[in-house]
């Protein structure tokens, strides 16, 4: 009597397994497709960056050519419009400074709110959360006026200083501190006679290293890629950042066809620093994004 049931069960589990096999294969096909989608444009960029203008005009191919070095030299040599190395440096300087400021001061603010009890603390915290969603572009008109009034237009300062107050990064730090820093440690430091500021720098900051790593990268990338504010603040070509140079390159292509090999190489050089950093630190970054998601 049990026999037919067992046979039936075996039959069912067989078809179930076959079905699961199909689902797995479909899942992998989808993943390969998505991988292709994400990587193909970068592949084309590298290929086209290795081809000369004549080759690029002649036709399309997926095989790299031999002009990578030539294109690299033309790209980093100053042209009539701007100097790419100058742009790389401007972008790097602004991005590195704002990343350090944004991470340090966000952590400091989050620490201040977490560790101490003071009047208005709750109000300030709620307020920061409330304004987190307001896009920075909304206050841009007033900000540019302010920058012009204090004669800081066409300098790096308006792009660096505002990084000190970043509500989203503050919120991330607050969550991280809540989950990872017991108040007893700070109490112990106090007993040992450490002053409050030293406690933060020498004890809290090292404990927050993973959060610092994630936010340093995000802060750097956000500033490196920022186009809107620099485009409004920076005028002279000496101070142009990479995104501004991209827009100049774009308007130049509108009127005439320049050396396309050079164009592809310039795009590649603007993208590559972040990609390299990412490939080394991707584990932290992907984890960091997921951690930030907990707030949802």
């Amino acid at each position: 009597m049990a026999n037919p049931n067992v046979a039936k069960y075996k039959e069912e589990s067989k078809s179930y397994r076959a079905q699961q096999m199909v689902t797995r294969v479909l899942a992998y096909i989808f993943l390969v497709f998505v991988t292709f989608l994400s990587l193909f444009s970068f592949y084309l960029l590298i290929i086209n960056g290795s081809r000369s203008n004549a080759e690029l005009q002649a036709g399309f191919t997926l095989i790299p050519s031999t002009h990578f070095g030539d294109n690299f030299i033309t790209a980093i040599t100053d042209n009539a419009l701007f100097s790419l190395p100058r742009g790389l440096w401007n972008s790097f300087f602004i991005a590195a400074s704002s990343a350090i400021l944004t991470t340090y001061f966000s952590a400091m603010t989050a620490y201040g709110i977490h560790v101490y009890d003071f009047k208005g603390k709750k109000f300030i915290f709620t307020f920061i959360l409330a304004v987190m969603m307001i896009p920075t572009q909304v206050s841009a008109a007033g900000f540019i006026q302010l920058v012009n009034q204090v004669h800081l237009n066409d300098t790096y300062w308006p792009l660096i200083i505002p990084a000190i107050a970043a509500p989203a990064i503050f919120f991330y730090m607050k969550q991280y501190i809540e989950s990872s820093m017991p108040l007893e440690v700070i109490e112990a430091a106090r007993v040992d006679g450490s002053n409050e500021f030293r406690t933060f720098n020498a004890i809290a900051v090292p404990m927050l290293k993973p959060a610092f790593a994630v936010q340093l990268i995000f802060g750097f990338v956000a500033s490196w890629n920022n186009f809107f504010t620099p485009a409004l603040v920076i005028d002279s070509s000496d101070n142009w950042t990479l995104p501004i140079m991209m827009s100049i390159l774009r308007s130049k292509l509108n009127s005439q066809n320049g050396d396309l090999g050079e164009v592809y190489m310039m795009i590649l050089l603007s993208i590559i620093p972040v990609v390299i950093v990412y490939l080394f630190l991707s584990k932290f970054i992907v984890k960091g994004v997921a951690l930030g998601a907990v707030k949802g």
Partner: protein
Amino acid sequence: MDKKHKSISYAKWGYIFIIPFLIVFITCQLIPLFNTFYNSFFENYRDGLAQIGPNFVGFDNYIKLFTPNKSGSINIVNYACNTMIMWIIGAIPQLVFSLLLAVIFTSARLNIKGQTFFKTVIYMPNLVMASAFSMLFFTLFSNVGPINQIILAMTNNTFEFFRNPVSTRCIIAFINFLMWFGNTTILLMAGIMGIDQSLFEAASIDGATSGQVFFKITLPLLMPILLYVAITSLIGGLQMFDVPQIITAGSGSPNNSCMTLIMYLNRLIGSGSKNYGMGGAVSVVIFILTGALSMIVFKTMVTRDDKPKKKAKKVKEAVKNG
């Protein structure tokens, strides 16, 4: 007594720690925000070399903003529609792909190998400079670019992608999709992993198919996270600037079909016209839209959210009862 004294003396440090943040926040964001709003009631712009204003004009800037132009349409409404259309074209595949990927990655049954690799790859476009990425797509789809070389070889004709509103909008939306679906996937994965795993186990013991598990358990319980992702994507969509600005060289062409709200704002307050009056009015409109849209999405999602939750409970009970 002693303890009280202690807490009072430490409170001072709380203020010291948050003061740099507050000062910078107030001077660089809050005051400019109020100034932007304040300026929207003034006539204040540059006409060639002459500076006009600032003169108080009441609501004139807003009236001007919503006055139909020669062809009878209202510019800012058009730009808002452009922004929304391009957001929707990108956001729908983004949510579908992300949901699918998140389910694939988290499924214990599928047990996908090489997850780190796939996640690393799909997240990468998010960190790439949007303006450089757009520049790349512009060159790829331009008349002399590789895509057109393929089309030329096949049909003996080129297709001018950037002369056609539909193709230009689709390219812009595609770039946004490509840049953001990895991010959304990771957010949704965190959401799925937050769901009580015993529900999935119970369902699999009861022989539920993958489809049933997805529609009856994963999707309803994922609603709050989906809501969060949708809102942030929407707010991000309203701020769309880099991609269309580069693709269209700031012109919003063809025919202003790709002009977004922030591109309009940039044009107004940029070094050409320095029109802080109109720019302020546009900022206020964007501010209100951001707030209103988040509220609408939030409300509709919350009311819809109630039912699936009950359903999920029913499923849970049904599973319990065998």
